[in-house]
């Protein structure tokens, strides 16, 4: 099993150059200067005694789309959820090593989880709008952070819905219940709700697995639109989706980060035989 190829921050400059070879020009523009936004160093996650994620070291680059792939139970969602401390809700869950966001330890003693989750938003597998109006769904986060000016709230709602490419579909029914929207619209609403608090990172945990192909295409288009503005991480079982939307891809197996490389490289010439076997369906 080889270690990741673009992961340690010590040799960012040389590895960035290697990675950029595989990027088409339009993707080279969105590297955000190639700064690692999230850095994992020997980061492990345990459920009780069970080590679900094993000593992962990786750099997640700013304004990049990073896909996480791997078989069920390999730790990819656990790793994703660790980035905004969603795993804190599981009592037996604890971590070791370090996971840094903008240079600060996510699991540090003085980390404010609420502030962290404002900066690191998350969208889940199943759309989960609140049983409220479309407007209130989007305004919920800003209100929670103290925003009460109605004019400003309206601006935020419109901007967020526009960014999530759903404004045109809902602009004349903002007072209607969000649960009345289609599944695909609900998922884009959830993205808009996350964007309303102006996060830096978007975590998407299988965001299209409950959607039909048309709605899936809209979410994928949305990811392309948001690329370059946000650091996006997406867990997906759909490898074609990973190859379509992401700049770099991480392959996890049994809690180990087997390979982390540019998506173009990983899907044309993976370095690790295990990655090759998984993505070509030769896994026994």
């Amino acid at each position, binding site marked *: 099993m080889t270690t990741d190829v673009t992961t340690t921050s010590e040799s960012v400059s040389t590895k960035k150059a290697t990675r950029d070879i595989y990027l088409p020009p339009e993707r080279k523009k969105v590297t955000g200067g190639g700064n690692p936004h999230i850095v994992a160093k020997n980061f492990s996650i345990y459920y009780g005694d069970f080590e679900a994620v094993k000593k992962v070291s990786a750099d997640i680059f700013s304004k990049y789309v990073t896909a996480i792939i791997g078989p069920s139970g390999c730790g990819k969602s656990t790793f994703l959820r660790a980035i905004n401390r969603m795993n804190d809700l599981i009592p037996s869950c604890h971590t070791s090593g370090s996971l840094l966001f903008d240079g600060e330890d996510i699991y540090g003693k003085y980390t404010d989880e609420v502030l962290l989750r404002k900066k690191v938003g998350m969208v889940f597998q199943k759309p989960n709008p609140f049983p409220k109006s479309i407007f209130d769904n989007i305004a919920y986060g800003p209100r929670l952070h103290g925003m009460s000016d109605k004019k400003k709230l309206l601006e935020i709602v419109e901007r967020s819905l526009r960014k999530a490419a759903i404004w045109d579909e809902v602009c004349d029914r903002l007072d209607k219940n969000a649960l009345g929207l289609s599944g695909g619209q609900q998922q884009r609403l959830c993205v808009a709700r996350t964007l309303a608090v102006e996060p830096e990172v978007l975590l998407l945990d299988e965001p299209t697995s409950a959607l039909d192909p048309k709605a899936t295409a809209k979410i994928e288009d949305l990811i392309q639109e948001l690329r370059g503005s946000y650091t996006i991480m997406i867990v997906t079982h759909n*490898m*074609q989706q990973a*190859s379509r939307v992401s700049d770099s891809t991480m392959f996890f197996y049994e809690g180990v980060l087997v390979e982390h490389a540019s998506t173009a490289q990983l*899907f*044309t*010439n*993976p370095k690790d035989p295990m*990655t*090759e*076997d998984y*993505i*070509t*369906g*030769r896994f*026994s």
Partner: protein
Amino acid sequence: MSSRPVHELIKELSQVLVQISDKVVGNLYNALHAVKHQDEQGARQIRIVDHEIDVAEVTLEERCLAFLALQQPVARDLRTIVTIIKINDDLERIGDLAVHIIDRMPEISQEMLEFFSFKDMGMHAGDMVEKSIKAFISKDRMLADEVCALDEEIDVMHRSVFKKVTALMKSPDSDVDQLIAALSISRYIERMADHASRIAHEVIYLVTGEILRHTGGFYEKLIGSINTDNSSEYHKGV
């Protein structure tokens, strides 16, 4: 590790490619034989086989494109299908060049053919094609490298023919049409070797994932060879 239907399909497409290569190489050797013996019947047969190669090439390409669209292969599978498509194209062109040799048959005498050792040159090119396909089947990087190196020998032979033809053309009683036909045949065989070399490069891509075309000091070699030629011509003039 169990073999899935999709991987069986890749094997099948590879086998079709090998069958096409057998026909192409066979046609090349037959073309050399037909030209040597001025065999009209053999020449007709070569054109028929070339048509079969053309049909097989299109069919294989269609199957590969359907595979890409329907199976969306990645990694080794993707490289294999892309390699098959590219080798398929090279083989079809080699097949066309064999027919071009036949087209020159009425214009060239047996003596001229022997004078330029076209049989050796053609056998050498055929050997390169066979080796490159063998390298594809066995995914043999070393053998692919060997094929690339052999290309240089054909280039030397071609340059030698070129020099002989230009020297002979200076003679007032030279048969220019026949010499041009000889130069063309030399050029066709040299092009065949180039295609074999391209196939070898595709095999290297298949094995390593690296595209090596236009690397390895090709440009420097080219400039070097031009300078050498110019300087020897210059010295001759002096």
